[in-house]
């Protein structure tokens, strides 16, 4: 599966949203499909010196230089170790009317799921071990939970830049 967007859309868009789910360690996460652009294999990442751990480096995405974020570190987990199924999810975020493209490291991409708003619970105020504003909601799938991330908060360009600045001082 290379193009997540190939999944067909059904249902009415007001209630049902599509999420791309992926795995980091043993935890399952989801991002709104509309915010993701593509999934690429992990290969040839250029390290940028002096960067905090969550910033793994930059890649060449068809001529565009794109920073790659280690989401695990950002979420307070252990850094991702590169394996065979490691991939980069390319997301596109809007910030100050500008589009920012970021790569997210993930252990494996799972599937695209459709979720009814009703089946999504609010982020718990504690217990998830993740900053509450990073979470859009929690979806229950069969017997596992999927943490639906709020990409704009979890990947806020401004905050990432501040963290880089702090690291350099």
């Amino acid at each position: 599966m290379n193009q997540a967007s190939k999944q067909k859309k059904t249902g009415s868009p007001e209630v049902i949203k599509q999420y791309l789910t992926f795995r980091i360690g043993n935890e399952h996460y989801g991002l709104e499909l509309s915010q993701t652009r593509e999934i690429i294999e992990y290969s040839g990442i250029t390290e940028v010196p002096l960067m905090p751990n969550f910033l793994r480096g930059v890649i060449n995405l068809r001529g565009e230089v794109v920073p790659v974020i280690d989401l695990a570190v950002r979420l307070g987990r252990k850094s991702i170790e590169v394996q065979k199924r490691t991939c980069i999810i390319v997301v596109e975020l809007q910030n100050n009317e500008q589009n920012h493209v970021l790569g997210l490291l993930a252990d494996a991409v799972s599937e695209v799921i459709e979720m009814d708003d009703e089946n999504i619970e609010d982020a718990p105020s504690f217990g998830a071990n993740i900053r509450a504003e990073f979470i859009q909601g929690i979806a229950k799938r069969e017997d596992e939970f999927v943490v639906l991330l709020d990409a704009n908060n979890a990947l806020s360009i401004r905050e990432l830049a501040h963290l880089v600045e702090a690291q350099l001082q």
Partner: protein
Amino acid sequence: MNLDGALQTFFAEAEDLLNSMEAALLRLDEGDKDMETINEIFRAAHTIKGSAGLFGLNDIVSFTHIVENVLDRARDEKITVSGDLLSILLPCRDHIAVLVENAMHERANDETCLAQGQALLDALKPWLGVAAAPVIAKQESNASAGFFDGNTGGSSDRDSWHISVRFGPDLLRNGMDPFSILRFLRTLGEITHITTITEHLPEFNDFDPEQLYLGFEITLGSNASQQQIEDAFMFVREESSIKIIPPRSNIYAFVNLIQSLPENAQRLGEILVKSHAITYQELEAALATQKNQAKALGKVGMLGDILIEEQAVAPEIVNAALDKQKKNNEKKSSPENRFIRVDAERLDKLINLIGELVINRQRVDLLASKMGNPTLIEAVTSMGNFTEAIRDAALTLRMVPIGDTFQKFKRVVRDTAKSLNKEIELEIEGAETELDRSMVEKLNDPLMHIVRNAMDHGIESISVRQARNKPDSGTIKLTARHDAGNIVIGIHDDGGGLDVEKIRKKAITNGLIEEGVHLSRQELFQLIFHPGLSTAEQVTNLSGRGVGMDVVKRNIEELQGGIEIESEMGVGTSLSIRLPLTLAIIDGFHVTAGNIDFIVPQNTILECVDLNSLNHVQGQNCVNLRGDQVPYIRLREIFSLQPGNHSREKIVVVQFGEKRAGIVVDELHGEIQTVVKPMGPIFQALKGIGGSSLLGTGAVALILDIQQLISFAINREHLRNNAFSVNIQEQE
């Protein structure tokens, strides 16, 4: 067929015209008495008014009309443009700029704006003479007014445009009405004659009432440009045949017109005579001769030649006409007409594509040398040369002379000097020096700040200058020149100069430096760029607009540039800004350190040497290079990269400003042309890396910003109190 496009063109054109209007007004202010200068201002106003009318921008039309009237009187030497009038005309020009700006953003002109306009118009009244009824731009009201204004005086008809139109048959069906074109033309001037050509109405059975068979012969008295007149036909141009004869064209033009049109020559001739384009005698003679000649030769001769031979027109008239035509031609090849407007975005796209081409070329290069096929390598090399040539040519497309930017300061200096009660002259040198358009835009603010600063703090008041035996009038000089792939911009003033001691004291008081620390002059001067040094004493409402010299320095550094200061007490101050010509593509040198690819900008490199072949200065990161001590930075250390083998390290000796330093790397790979890709906002705080770039292999390389890298190193060494900064200073 895009009105929006035409409107955009108008805005761009208006901006240019307003700029040249301003420049011309300032020339008058400097004592220029040339009539052509006034003409230039008049033409600018007139053209703006005319074009604005085309687009129904009534506020612009009615305001500019009055300004134009005043200018017209100046042109007729009924009034002189002197100080008083100039100080109204300049704000009038600004007001037009505001109106244009508002129109561009589709903003309505609010009451304040209109009141300002009215105030300016009131101020212009003394220069207006008696009759100057404000025009209300005539809009296409349901064709109530007649099309002839009656007033045909003023210009003789040879002074008019002649327009010959044969419309395409499907125009009406396509929803176009030629009548609306006449309305357009009327906004440009006055239609003094029109003949509707009915010759092509067919026989009864062939007549399709929805098809257009008519044509027009139009005489238009107008000061509009040919382009403006052509624009009136914008929507019908493709399917119709349109011939435009400019004013004062000689009879050839009309004869050629007659010959090129499908209708009967006699009838056409009569139309032209009726519209006073040519006289009956001229026509008669020309047609008769043509007939005879045709009989004799069996073909139609060139009428122009015949006219001279037969003396149908006095030779001097023909010659005069030829002269005029020559002049017209000369005008045509003047700069304005040699340019074509291109959307900057398209240009950027082209340059980006060429950047990709450059990268791909490098990849091909790499593959060819891997394969080792000499013929292939040769072919690839020659392709490489072309790629380079294309790149250079493409980059020059975006190059603009810096003169336009400098020119803007004439106004700033004039206005500011007045408000400061100082006399200041602005001199400009090297206005033709070119640099990338995108750089020019970013250079505006820092330059503005430096110039304001020089006027405010640099140039002394007249009394002080007199006491110092200096001329009353201070001078600020803006210079530009190219220097080894860089542009060097200078801002010099003959003012009071910087007081090194005062700077030192302030820096000590503000805790920037410690007492007793030795700093070179240059380093002390550089302190003025420190945010902590803009003291209240310095801040006035002029230069202290919340922006300090620190912002100036940051702006320049963002452009990969540097700034140096030279100053002498009582004599003056010179700032020189050194910038790369473009930020899009650079020539670089590819190196690696700790498994990361880096690019060193080629224009900073002096030489590359084996580190171990040089003698080290004991206990310091410093080598002896042919007798000179050169401090160095080890990339692996400064960037905390993986440790590697020291034995094969290389040193790249770089120059920045007047200083030299070494960059120690693991491996040298060679020269590379590279497209600069911005790293994005996340990496903003990272010093020493100016951007990124793609290698032939597709890998990302980081471009070093030498200036930043070295100040970064100095800062870190300062903390460790190490040799690097000391050595850098000793070199001066």
